[in-house]
């Protein structure tokens, strides 16, 4: 082995810098959840779990967390059902598909402020009071493109012969759907569901615009941020980060292996 070339060292250094830049904002709240920080100096001498204890008593935050989970679950159910239906319907059909597909992708491509404001005016025009329902609709419209695309990609990589074999063996359309198509789509649907949940969990800009009196966690944090956070928020952040990493690992397990396998062929 020869010594690494200067260019490699330079590249590695930039990569390390990028990693530090990306993780430093996450490092601050996590460290502060275990140690006290005053005037920018960390007191390493006395680790504490008191922030986590305080968090358990913060009802306002826990209520917001519950709201976020409810919104996330509703969004997942709605977006997976409609995303899968749309993918099944558009797959193999030509009529109007590219236009409809473009419409589905619009809320994802447009800045959230535009999608959010458009929905805000829409809800007002149809007389729908701002509530959790409007938040769920906003989130579903936003994440639908992701679920749709994930399921559609799996459908496209699925061999046509599976369905044909099923019909040749005398299965009805229903039987083919339940026994052949759906099982083949299940891991893409789960992966899409996890992505949808992760996006919904952190969605802030559309939510701020369409939410009523009950706010989700990011919106509550946003409101609290102007005044400064109490230390127990750091504990919450540390927990959310761990939870998010777990979700990422899960999503990767469901989505990556098959796609990489298909890319190689």
């Amino acid at each position, binding site marked *: 082995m020869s010594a690494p070339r200067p260019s490699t060292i330079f590249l590695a250094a*930039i990569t390390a810098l990028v990693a530090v830049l990306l993780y430093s904002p996450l490092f601050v709240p996590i460290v502060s959840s275990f140690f006290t920080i005053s005037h920018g100096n960390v007191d390493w001498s006395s680790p504490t779990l008191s922030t986590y204890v305080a968090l358990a008593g913060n009802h306002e935050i826990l209520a917001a967390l519950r709201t976020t989970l409810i919104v996330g679950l509703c969004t997942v159910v709605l977006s997976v059902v409609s995303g899968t239906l*749309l993918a099944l319907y558009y797959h193999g059909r030509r009529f109007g598909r590219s236009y409809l597909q473009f419409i589905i992708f619009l809320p994802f491509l447009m800045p959230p402020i535009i999608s959010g*404001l458009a929905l805000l005016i829409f809800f007002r025009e149809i007389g729908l009071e701002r509530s959790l329902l409007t938040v769920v609709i906003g989130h579903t419209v936003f994440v639908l493109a992701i679920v749709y695309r994930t399921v559609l990609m799996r459908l496209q990589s699925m061999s046509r012969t599976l369905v044909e074999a099923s019909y040749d063996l005398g299965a009805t359309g229903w039987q083919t759907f339940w026994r052949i198509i759906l099982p083949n789509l299940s891991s893409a649907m789960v992966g899409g569901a996890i992505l949808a949940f992760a996006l919904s969990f952190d969605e802030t800009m559309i939510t701020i615009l369409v939410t009523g009196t009950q706010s989700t966690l990011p919106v509550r944090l946003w409101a609290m941020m102007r005044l400064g956070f109490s230390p127990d928020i750091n504990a919450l952040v540390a927990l959310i980060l761990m939870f998010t990493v777990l979700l990422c690992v899960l999503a990767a397990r469901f989505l990556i292996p098959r796609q990489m396998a298909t890319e190689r062929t």
Partner: protein
Amino acid sequence: MSRAGSTHSAEGRLSQLVTVLAFALPVIFVLVPLAIFLVYSFFGVDQGTIVYAPTLSNYVRFFTDPIFLPVFWNTIVLCVSVAVICILLAYPAAYFLTTLKGRWRYALLMLLLVPLLMSYVIKIYAIRSILGLNGFLNKALVALGILDQPSTLFVFNMNAILLTLSLLLIPFAILPIFLSLERIPQTLLRASDDLGASSLQTFLRITLPLSLPGVASAASFVFVLAIGDFLTPQMVGGISGFTFGRILYSQFGTAYNWPFGAALSVALAIVVICAILVGERFGRSRGTSV
């Protein structure tokens, strides 16, 4: 699946329902709101109530009022700068990833992408505390002897917005650049090497041109995400860091002028659509349509 409809009448009804839904859902929940929004931009406001009579006054105001066009332009410049910073940092990192072998390559890619899924609001808050007068950045610069005393250069102004947005959006630049670099066939690089090119020549004449589509997509991603953001400027911009997103947002809050806000959104949408089209146009590698 095309045969599924004809076997039972229940199935037939279901497939009709699916057909209706497949057309109705996207139209009702995406197209109709956007259309209403566009129509709103031609309404006016009189003493806090919306006047439903067509007028061009919102657009006239946007182009003639001395406030809006400069802010609009400054915001575009800001977001282009964010895209440039992100690419300058993301390109070497993405290049480094492609020099790694197998498992390490994807593990490190994951590592650089995971921060994307972390709470946006919390990241803004943490970056604000890092940039602050008493923050880590000022402390580090003073400790390194670059500054004599903490600077207000990046506290509550446009610089703060620039740095914060760049930090938040780097991962969006890494992924497309990495994918375009990874797609370059190794045989091309080996051929260039065999023909006696130095590694710098190979990079400049093979790798860089072939990775430019990825750079274009990265720039368009970052630009669109940066220009639509109204949370970051609100949080770290202070009074001087006034961006278009903030003005737009304030039309639906304190200023309470929805039709004018809708007109500003149309201007924003036009810029975004242009950015996406440019990204699409140059984001496709020559010869392949992937």
